[in-house]
């Protein structure tokens, strides 16, 4: 079978890879947006924390025999706790300063984390076996679907939906949204804003780690897996704007699909297509697709 002269199996598998990358873009840009909303900090360490999530899962499996399903819970909790420590000890001191200092601090932290892992595990990747329950695949007729890949998309979307629900439909989320609008007034009304900030950062970091565990069986677990990804996610954030939760999710998935499609049509451009779209969006709609200017 062919569509526009392209075999559907090829098209389907590339679109699936695109959808998976898009899911990672969506989770990561969602985490960045939540953190930015309340802390006004762009978390440059997000990519390093995603890498940490994958490594915690890998270490847990190889050293302690902790399986994938446990890792999916433990890794985000541990990495999120690490994020909370960072927030309490360092980020907290910068809230009164220019926002750019937060970017610079987290950039330094990213260098430290990445450097330590590179020293310990080298630059080459470690393999993480696909859990047994999710191995194998299904023949859909027009293409072959590895079950794990389907699971990644479903799990990522579920987490994104959960986050959206928490923020838009619960009381805690209402505090968070109010804090994003005006944290001083929310504090005056008796909400413990510093605690809210701490947990928001922790949750954002945990999201990155969750994406890292999902990614571990697909990509190689390597110290540099996060740093290249995070720059693309920054472009995704510029394209979507950080104003809307659903906007981040839709933009992330959409760009992943476009990237996958580019790999079929013109592979050479696939590494830069997101950046090219960013340029176009900046020219046409500088505030971003979902931005509030």
């Amino acid at each position, binding site marked *: 079978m062919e569509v526009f002269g392209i075999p559907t199996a090829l098209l389907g598998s590339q679109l699936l890879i695109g959808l998976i990358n898009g899911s990672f873009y969506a989770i990561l840009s969602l985490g960045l947006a939540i953190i*930015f909303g309340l802390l006004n900090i*762009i978390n440059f360490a997000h990519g390093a924390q995603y890498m940490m999530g994958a490594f915690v899962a890998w270490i847990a499996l190889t050293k302690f025999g902790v399986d994938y399903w446990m890792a999916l819970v433990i890794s985000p909790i541990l990495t999120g706790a690490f994020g909370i420590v960072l927030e309490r000890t*360092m980020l907290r*001191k*910068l809230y009164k*300063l*220019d*926002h*750019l*200092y937060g*970017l*610079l*601090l987290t*950039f*330094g*932290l*990213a*260098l*430290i*984390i*990445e*450097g*330590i892992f*590179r*020293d310990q595990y080298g630059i080459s990747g470690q393999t993480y076996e696909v859990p047994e329950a999710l191995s194998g695949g299904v023949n859909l007729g027009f293409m072959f679907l590895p079950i794990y890949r389907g699971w990644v998309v479903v799990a990522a979307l579920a987490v994104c939906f959960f986050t959206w629900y928490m923020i838009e439909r619960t009381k805690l989320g209402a505090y968070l949204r109010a804090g994003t609008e005006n944290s001083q007034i929310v504090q005056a009304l008796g909400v413990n804003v510093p605690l809210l900030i701490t947990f928001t950062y922790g949750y954002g970091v945990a999201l990155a780690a969750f994406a890292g565990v999902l990614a571990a069986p697909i990509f190689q677990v390597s110290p540099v897996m996060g*740093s290249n990804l995070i*720059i*693309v996610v*920054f*472009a995704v*954030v*510029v394209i979507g704007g950080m104003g809307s939760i659903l906007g981040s999710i839709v933009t992330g998935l959409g760009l992943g699909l476009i990237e996958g499609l580019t790999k079929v049509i013109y592979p*050479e451009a696939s*590494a*830069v297509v997101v*950046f*090219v779209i*960013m*340029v176009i969006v*900046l*020219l046409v709609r*500088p505030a971003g697709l979902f931005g509030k200017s």
Partner: protein
Amino acid sequence: MNTQASHASHGQLVKPTRSNTVFLVLFALGLVAPFAVYPTFLMKALCFGLFASAFNLLLGYVGLLSFGHAAFLGVAGYVCGMMVRDAGVTPELGIVAGTAAAASLGWVFGKLAIRRTGIYFAMITLALAQMVFFLALQMKATGGEDGFQGVPRGHLFGLIDMNNNIAMYYLVFAVFCIGFFVIHRTIHSPFGQILKAIRENEPRAISLGYDVDKFKLIAFVISAALAGMAGATKTLVFQLASLTDVHWHTSGEVVLMTLLGGLATVFGPLAGATVIVTLQNELADKVGSWVTVIMGVIFVLCVLMFRRGIVGELQALVKR
């Protein structure tokens, strides 16, 4: 970045004479330095010093954080390398060509990035520079992962043999002084005052009738051109342009040099660049990948408790 930056520049305005003395002393030191210190190290420090000074013009005096300055350094290096090795022009023309290429790229980046401010500005410049990195990786002309090798130093004006390290040093020193002078003149001109006004209070600058975007763009192009000048010169020194020069690590390094030396100070970026280049030279073969960790630690310390940087702290000491 506003409060401490205004402190620093204040020091400049109050005591211009002291600044002049420092200038003369440093200039004299620069003239005799290659006879006391390994010239290749000095050339590297001067190239990165100019790179950081150019970056400082943007962050320190206009308040714009570009996280993509490696693109200008790298592209100018490639263009200079191609002109000198493949088109066979003399080294000074190679530097001019590299600078022009960086300025044009700076215009494009600037046009796009100044559509947003603050954190977005940093992310846009980073993403654009990453695009340049991927292009450099994939294009045949740049030599991809091998880098652009075997660039001859040639003869300056077709006369002076640049393979002599001392001669090469004086060329680098001259380039540095030209770049430094351009930055100095830019900052201490009416144009520079308007840049500072934009940094301190953009809405007010707009309400005074200044076309803020135009000023930002011109500053961005000057900064990019000078970063390119540093990159082109560096290519001649090391006879190589590589992917490292366009990598985001380099963009981060120049931020670190500027921050460590002292934001919005005249000599800070040079001081910061010298310290970082020294550290890299000393540590590279001893600690391996811990260099990255050490850079990260310095970054964190600078941001948390040392925001004025080396020169900024010194100025504060002298003023007391």
